[in-house]
């Protein structure tokens, strides 16, 4: 069936460096994508979202890029901090107010 997956399960980055987390999706009908951050023992926390009619969106220290041609999504975190250490999930939904389909996540570790 349709699924969202991640290329790298773990990623270690030096504090202050930039990090890039990648995600591949397979449902071409998906209209909306979200990146979530999940710290140990907590629920997923919304980071940034993007619609399928956009290819880039920026937030505070984060940028999401969407390449619909190759069905690829990435999350860029600038000037990483120790608090950025967490598991990051991309998720997709084909329509508003429908279920999210998550990947298995990438664990980001920031090295002091």
């Amino acid at each position, binding site marked *: 069936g349709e699924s*969202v997956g991640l290329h790298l399960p773990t990623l270690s980055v030096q504090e202050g460096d930039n990090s890039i987390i990648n995600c591949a999706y397979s449902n071409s009908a998906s209209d*909306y994508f*979200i990146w*979530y951050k999940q710290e140990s*023992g*907590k*629920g*997923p*926390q*919304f980071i940034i*979202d993007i619609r399928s009619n956009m290819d880039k969106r920026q937030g505070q220290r984060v940028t999401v890029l969407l390449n619909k041609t190759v069905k690829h999504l990435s999350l860029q975190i600038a000037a990483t901090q120790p608090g950025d250490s967490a598991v990051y*999930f991309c*998720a997709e*939904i084909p329509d*508003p*107010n*429908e*279920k*999210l*389909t*998550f*990947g*298995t*996540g990438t664990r980001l570790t920031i090295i002091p």
Partner: protein
Amino acid sequence: GAGVSQSPRYKVAKRGQDVALRCDPISGHVSLFWYQQALGQGPEFLTYFQNEAQLDKSGLPSDRFFAERPEGSVSTLKIQRTQQEDSAVYLCASSIKETQYFGPGTRLLVL
């Protein structure tokens, strides 16, 4: 402001016991979702409510799982005759548009 809250945060149940997990969504959020998250995995959809109407329950793994939202606000996920494979974190999320906001989850351990 208050986010999504869930209770209990932790629940240990003996196999065969019934459990009830509560979700208090963000006030005014029409949509409410339940997800199950196994260790090391991403959350998986269980069921979805719009107000009090359960519009999608395709993710519920068996008829031992039941969810309700009788007044369109608080929701309860009930698991009857718990099995060891039900051990997981149960996440609730609410939304008013596309973005779903998650609660902290209930970690269920079935012994």
